[in-house]
C-alpha cells in the first residue's frame, strides 16, 4: 500500500523519464522539444501533487471563522510561473527550429551535424 499510495510520484518519475528519453533518443528537433515539454510537465505535476492536503478543499476562504482544511495554494502559484516559463521555452525552441529549417533545410539532428561537418 505504501508503494501504491505514493502513485503521484510514480507518475512524476515515469513522465520525467519518458520526456528525457525522447530528448536523448530522437533526432527530430521538434520531437526533442516535445520530449522537453513532457519532461517539464512531470515537474508541474510533482508540485501540484505535493500541494494536495488529504481531505482539503480548494483554498477559497468564504468564512474566515471556520477552521477548514484546504490545499496549499503556494505550489500551485509557483507552478503557474513555471508553466509560463515552460511555454516560453517551448515557443522559443520552436522559433529556433523554424530558423534552423530555413538555414539547413532539415530538422533532423544527424543531418544537420553532417552539414556542419562539411562546411
Amino acid at each position, binding site marked *: 500500500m505504501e508503494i501504491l499510495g505514493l502513485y503521484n510520484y510514480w507518475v512524476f518519475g515515469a513522465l520525467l523519464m519518458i520526456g528525457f528519453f525522447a530528448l536523448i533518443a530522437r533526432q527530430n528537433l521538434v520531437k526533442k522539444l516535445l520530449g522537453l515539454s513532457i519532461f517539464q510537465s512531470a515537474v508541474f505535476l510533482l508540485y501540484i501533487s505535493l500541494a494536495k492536503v488529504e481531505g482539503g478543499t480548494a483554498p477559497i476562504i468564504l468564512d474566515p471563522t471556520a477552521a477548514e482544511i484546504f490545499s496549499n495554494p503556494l505550489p500551485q502559484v509557483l507552478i503557474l510561473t513555471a508553466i509560463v516559463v515552460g511555454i516560453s521555452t517551448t515557443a522559443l525552441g520552436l522559433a529556433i527550429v523554424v530558423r534552423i529549417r530555413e*538555414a539547413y533545410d532539415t530538422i533532423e539532428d544527424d543531418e544537420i*551535424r553532417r552539414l556542419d561537418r562539411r562546411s
Partner: protein
Amino acid sequence: MSLEAHIPALPVIVPLLAAPIAAYLRPRHLAWAAATLASIASFAIAVLLALATRDGSIHRYAMGGWPAPFGIELAIDSLGALVLLIITGASTLAIIAGRETIERDIEPHRQPLFYAAWLMVVAGLAGIAITGDAFNVFVFMEISSLATYVVIAAGSDRQALTAVFKYLIMGTIGATFYLIGVGFVYMMTGTLNFADMQARLADIPYVAPVHLAAAFIIVGLALKAAVFPLHAWLPNAYAHAPHAVTAFIAACSTKVTILVLLRFDFVVFMGNIAEHATQFALFVMPLALLGILFGSGVAIFETNVKRLLGYSSIAQLGYILLGASFVDRAGLLASVLHIFNHALAKGALFLAIVALGHHLTRFEIRDLHGIGRRMPWTLGAFSIAALSLVGVPGTAGFISKWYLIVAAFGQGSLGLVLVGVIVASSLMAVVYLWRILEPAWFAAADPVAAGAADDKRVGEAPVGVLAVVLLAAALNVWFGLVPAFPLELAGHAADELLRHVP
C-alpha cells in the same frame, strides 16, 4: 520609503524596465544608448552595493513590502555583490565595445529587440545574484537563459542556431532538475527562503528527500554551469554567438550559477545533512580536476580561437570548483577570488576578440596570423589578458592562483597532487595561448585564410572599442597589483558561506 531604501532592488529593476523601452526605441542607435545607459546605471548601483558590503554586512530588501519568509527577499552579501559587479561590468564593457560589430552583423530592424534581450539577460543574472529565495532563483535563471538563447542565436552564421538549440535543451534540463530539487526541499520545509530553509531543515528527522533534492540541485546547476562532463553546450555557444555576447556571457553567466551552487550547498545543506561536506568534496573535486585537465587538454588541440577560449573556461571553472571542494576558508576565498579574476581575464580576452572582429570574419587560428602588425594595441591587450589567464605575477590571475595553491598545500599529502594538476594546467594554458599569440605576432598573414589580416586597409579597431579593450587589460594588471578590493569581498563571502558549516 525613500529611493535610497530601494537601491538593493535596482540592479534588477533598472534593466528590466529599460528592456521594453529599448525594444520600442527608434532609430536603433537610441536603443543602443538606452541599453548602455541602463547597463551603466546598474553597474553604478553594483559598485555602491559592493562598497556597502565591504564590511561584511548583508543588505536585505523585502520585495513588495512582504517580509521574509513569506515574501520574496533580496539579500545582498559580499558574494552577491561581487558577482553583481562582474555581471554589470561585463555587460557595460561588452555593449560599448560591441556596438559596431552588432550594427554590422544584425539586421537593423532587429537590433532594438536584440538590445532588449540583452537587458533581460542582465536583469536575470543580476536577480540570481542577489535574491534570497530559491524559487525566485529559478525564475531569474529562466529569464536570463531565455534571453541568452535569443542573443546567442543572433550570431551571424547558421551554426549559432544549432549551438543555441543544444544550449536550450541542456539549459532547460538543468533548470528543471533544479526546480525538482527545490520542490523536494519545499516539500520538507515549507519554505523557499534560503535562510529559512537553513533554519528549518535542522528539525527534519527524515532526510532522504533532502538528499535527493541535493542531488537534483547539484546536477542541475552543474549542467547550467558547464561543469565537466556536463559542458557540451558551452564551446559552440561561445564560438558562434556574436562577439559582444560572448564577451558578456563568458565573463559571468556560468559564474552566476556557481554562486547558486555554493549558496545551496554551503548555506542550506552543509549545516543540516551530516556528511554533506564530504559528499560535496568527493563529488566536486574529481570533476573539478578532470575538468581542469580536460578543458586545457582539448584547448591545446582546438583550432578555433573562440571555441578554444570556451574550453579554457571549462578548465578555469574547474579551478573555481576545486577551491570550493576543500570546504575551508582558504579554498572558498580562492574560489570566489577566481570567479572575479577569471571574469577579468576571460572578459578582456573576448573583448579583444570583439575588437579583432572589426576586421576578421572567422576566428580560426590561421585567420589571426600576422594580425599583430595591423592591430598591435588590440593584440597587446589580448596578450596581457592571456598572461592573466595563465597566472603570471603582476596580473589578476596570479593572485587567485596563488591563493588556490596555498589552499591546496593546506590539504595535506593530497595537496601535492592538486598543486601538480594546477601547475600542469597552467603550463597547458601557456601552450594553447602561445599557439594563438606567436603566429598572431610574428607569422605572415595566411593567403588562403578568410580573414583580412593582409589587407592594407586593415588598421586598429575604432578608438572607443580600443579604449574599452585596453581598459579591460589594464584592470587585469591593476587587480594583479592592488588586489585588496576583491580580496576583501571574497574574504567576507567565504566567511558568510562557512557560517553554517559545522
